[in-house]
């Protein structure tokens, strides 16, 4: 083995052939990876991190090409390797784990056969030997009952299980380098935490190097030793994880960290600072100089945009490199934390949104080919309120029922049982078409996916104008004026009205969607994961926009999310849901401090936060999440609860313990919980 680095990338230059010409996506990337090391490659969408990863295994598709630079792996040059050489390396010395595990597995082949392929191809193993290795690998990735799993098809397994199988498939030949491309994106928070823990454990056993690609800075902190930050195809900063996150030197890195909510701050104390502007799409001709110059607050045109900026070592830190012309002159950075004082809770007026004993059961369509399915209890006996002018956040993982509540509030589905009151009006049984126009005006929704929230065949102006017309009955002549005014509120230029959604960025589309929702001047805004699909630097801007609008109009915001950090930042009241029931609800400071419901505790410990100083008592949830059709009789969390006390958890539904307006549904009494649990989410000052 050579002494040099395992992977040595120098001046890598990658271009894509588009209809309009050749666009250079990666102008020149250089980094090294030593054997056994874990390097994180972070950046937002379109920054080229996946492109760089795929270029290492030379899988760029028909349109992409490596047009310059070198990639040396184990001493061999990969850019000029022939097909046979590539095949010998892929799957054997370099293996990959992908983002969407379900799509990455062949749906018509059993898991076992897919696992056995690599050893049989690369090591010439016989079928029996390969099978034995596959079984051993499945045990290593902690899948229960490996024998049975071998015979399953991918669609019969959960997302977390599928990802473990993809990891097993990658590690089965003992590769020297494992490339993980967004491996936990799309997985639930607790599942993500479990997979990240698994990766850490496997590292200690397999001694392979890892290239970990993610847009989630927090998950990088969990797994990696070093991290490199990419922006528009360039590595702007690189160094040990601890240094990068406590002392970032590049304005982009600082901007990223500034716009991420941590669990320790809220909107009153430390506002999120979004990065102005947005990521420019890969242009055919890149301007010389720093790619971040257009958005940088510290830019000096003479030094920053005239010539290429080399990557230089930070003074005094041999491992820390930054590509910034002004790196040494920038003021020191410190993480913003702060907790402000919440406004005094409103008087005892009736809440704007109130839900009592809400239950929603879906009767599945009877499939004629198979037997009838069990009905799905999406929401069971839920009580929630949101005060006027305040933000209620509903938090939980997939399948917890939060989206169903959003749909019931907005009338897209009808409640099976229980009361739903909007501004005092009972609407539970009213589907959206049965609601009065006044009611329709009262509540509007902002949706999750910016790509499908606007009709791609209509201009922005048409969408907003139509909403104005239907909700306000606005006369057509004044339509343009009304549209322009709404665009202004969401900080879009009036010229946007003539644009089609496909020409807008994700953030712009979401703003347009918010403008559309405001057309009727709603008193209640239901936002269903409005920022989950957006880039990090854009999330902050949209979150700020929502809080601003809420403050200006006194609207009530029901904010649904799986992202605890955003919820901590933005909400006044929080409800934590699990499998259709409310596990815990209360003012945000109370919910995010002990006593916690055991599920909240697990969630908080699982959230990846980009703060290496935060010492976390790790709680990994074992056990299976019951399918929504088989919710247990007692506490729904009983099958996975690390604090399960005994049969009472399985048999009896937990009582709701009330501490003022903080409610916890658990059998364990509150003071007992307080005693057992430590505060999570606060940055612990560690003496160094």
């Amino acid at each position, binding site marked *: 083995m050579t002494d040099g680095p395992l992977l040595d990338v120098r001046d890598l230059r990658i271009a894509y052939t588009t209809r309009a010409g050749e666009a250079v996506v990666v102008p020149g990337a250089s980094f090294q990876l030593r054997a056994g090391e874990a390097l994180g490659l972070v950046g937002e969408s379109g920054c080229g991190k996946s492109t760089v990863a795929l270029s290492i295994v030379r899988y760029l598709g028909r349109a992409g090409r490596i047009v310059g630079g070198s990639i040396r792996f184990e001493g061999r040059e990969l850019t000029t390797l022939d097909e046979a050489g590539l095949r010998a390396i892929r799957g054997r010395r370099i293996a990959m784990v*992908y983002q969407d595990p379900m799509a*990455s597995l062949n749906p018509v082949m059993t898991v076992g056969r897919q696992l056995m392929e690599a050893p049989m191809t690369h090591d010439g193993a016989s079928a029996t030997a390969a099978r034995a290795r596959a079984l051993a690998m499945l045990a290593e990735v902690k899948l229960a009952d490996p024998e049975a799993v071998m015979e399953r098809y991918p669609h*019969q397994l959960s997302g977390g299980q599928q990802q473990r199988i993809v990891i097993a498939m990658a590690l089965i030949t003992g590769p020297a380098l494992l490339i993980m491309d967004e491996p936990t994106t799309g997985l639930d928070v607790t599942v993500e935490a479990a997979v990240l823990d698994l990766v850490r454990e496997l590292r200690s056993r397999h001694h392979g190097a890892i290239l970990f690609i993610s847009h989630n800075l927090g998950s990088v902190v969990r797994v990696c030793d070093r991290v490199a930050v990419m922006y528009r195809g360039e590595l702007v900063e690189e160094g040990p994880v601890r240094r990068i996150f406590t002392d970032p030197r590049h304005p982009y890195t600082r901007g990223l960290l500034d716009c991420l909510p941590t669990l320790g701050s809220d909107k009153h104390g430390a506002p999120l600072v979004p990065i102005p502007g947005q990521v420019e799409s890969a242009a055919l001709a890149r301007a010389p100089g720093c790619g971040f110059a257009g958005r940088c607050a510290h830019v000096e045109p003479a030094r920053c945009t005239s010539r290429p900026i080399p990557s230089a070592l930070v003074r005094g830190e041999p491992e820390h490199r930054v590509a910034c012309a002004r790196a040494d002159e920038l003021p020191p950075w410190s993480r913003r934390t702060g907790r402000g004082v919440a406004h005094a809770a409103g008087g005892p007026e009736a809440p704007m949104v109130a839900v009592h004993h809400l239950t929603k059961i879906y009767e599945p369509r009877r499939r004629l080919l198979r037997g009838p399915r069990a009905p799905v209890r999406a929401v069971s006996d839920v009580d929630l309120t949101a005060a006027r002018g305040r933000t209620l956040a509903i938090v939980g993982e997939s399948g917890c029922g939060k989206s169903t509540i959003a749909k019931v509030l907005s009338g897209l589905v009808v409640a099976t049982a229980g009361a739903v009151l909007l501004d005092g009006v009972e609407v539970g049984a009213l589907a959206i078409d049965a609601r009065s126009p006044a009611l329709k005006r009262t509540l509007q929704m902002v949706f999750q996916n910016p790509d499908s929230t606007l009709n791609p065949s209509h201009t922005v102006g048409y969408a907003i104008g139509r909403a104005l017309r239907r909700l306000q009955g606005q006369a057509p002549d004044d339509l343009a004026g009304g549209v322009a005014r709404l665009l202004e509120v969401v900080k879009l230029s009036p010229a946007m009205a003539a644009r089609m959604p496909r020409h807008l960025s994700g953030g712009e589309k979401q703003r347009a969607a918010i403008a559309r929702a405001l057309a009727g001047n709603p008193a209640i805004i239901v936002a269903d994961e409005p920022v989950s699909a957006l880039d990090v630097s854009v999330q902050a801007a949209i979150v700020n926009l929502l809080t601003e609008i809420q403050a200006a109009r006194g609207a009530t915001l029901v904010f649904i999310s799986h992202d605890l950090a955003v919820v901590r930042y933005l909400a006044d009241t929080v409800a934590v849901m699990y499998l259709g029931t409310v596990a815990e609800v209360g003012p945000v400071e109370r919910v995010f401090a002990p006593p916690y419901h055991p599920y909240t505790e697990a969630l908080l410990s699982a959230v990846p936060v980009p703060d290496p100083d935060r010492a976390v008592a790790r709680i990994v949830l074992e056990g299976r999440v019951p399918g929504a059709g088989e919710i247990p009789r007692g506490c729904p969390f009983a099958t996975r609860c690390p604090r399960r006390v005994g049969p009472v958890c399985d048999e009896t539904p937990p009582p709701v313990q009330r501490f003022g307006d903080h409610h916890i549904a658990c059998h364990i009494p509150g003071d007992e919980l307080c005693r057992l649990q430590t505060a999570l989410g606060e940055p612990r000052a560690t003496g160094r």
Partner: protein
Amino acid sequence: MKRFAVKHLLFLLLTLFAVSFLVFTLNEFSPGAVARKILGAYATQEQVDLLTKQMGLDRPVLVRYVDYLGALASGDLGYSTRFKAPVKDVLFKHLANTALLAAIAFACIVPLSTVLGVVAGMREASRLDRAVLMCSTVIASIPEFALGVFLASVFVVWLGWLPGTATLLAGGGWSVAAQLVLPVAVIVLFDSGYVVSMVRASMVEVMQRPYIRTAILKGLPFRSVILRHALRNAMLTPVTVIMLQINYLVAGVVVVETVFAYPGFGRMILEAALFKDIALIEAGALVAVFLAVVTNILGDLAYMLLDPRIRA
């Protein structure tokens, strides 16, 4: 599995009833026409009416339909006025001829189209792919009779290697096999054009899937990737299409049969329709529908067998 069978059987029966009733009513619009046909154009109206009454054709439609069903159940399919023979004999003779043609054609089309479609789709936009795409598009654009004319002009008129008709009568001096070559060739060419494009489209789509990327990045040789990962997934949709081709092969090749004067099922129905031979039309329609529904069922079954996501 049982529910599958029951559900589809019910559907089959329902469809058979519905269509046969429709065809029945269609034909029975002008009850006097049958008698007119039998008696000829010079018969007086009274004679026509009398014969109509005698044949029981003036009774209400439903009653006649029930009678018809009863006759069917006992195996009596009626009498063909065009061929002057019991419908049953005429039907089965023509059906057998067509079955022969269809079987040979099917045996050629399936492997040919599958191989071409897979080979074209596995490397999209390669030279081979463009060639296959263009060829299949062009060939599928040529109507069957035009294909027949083109091929005949080459092989019959110019080269004289093959006979111009396939009447299956022994007297012509050409063996049955030689007679069948051109009709089969026309059918295979025309239909393959369509099936190849379907297989190719499905293959192209499958090759874009992430699991193919996984297989390639596992270092598997390309051949393994295609045969073990791509093929089965790519054939999921084409399989149903291929099953439906059986319909076309049996009943839809009337044009080819006409070109080569082949005594097949489609031609039989054409003549029956032109001649207003009602009993034959009804019987033929029933067979066609039966076949249509059965191939639908076979297609669904094949899909179920291939795709484990549907099964469990």
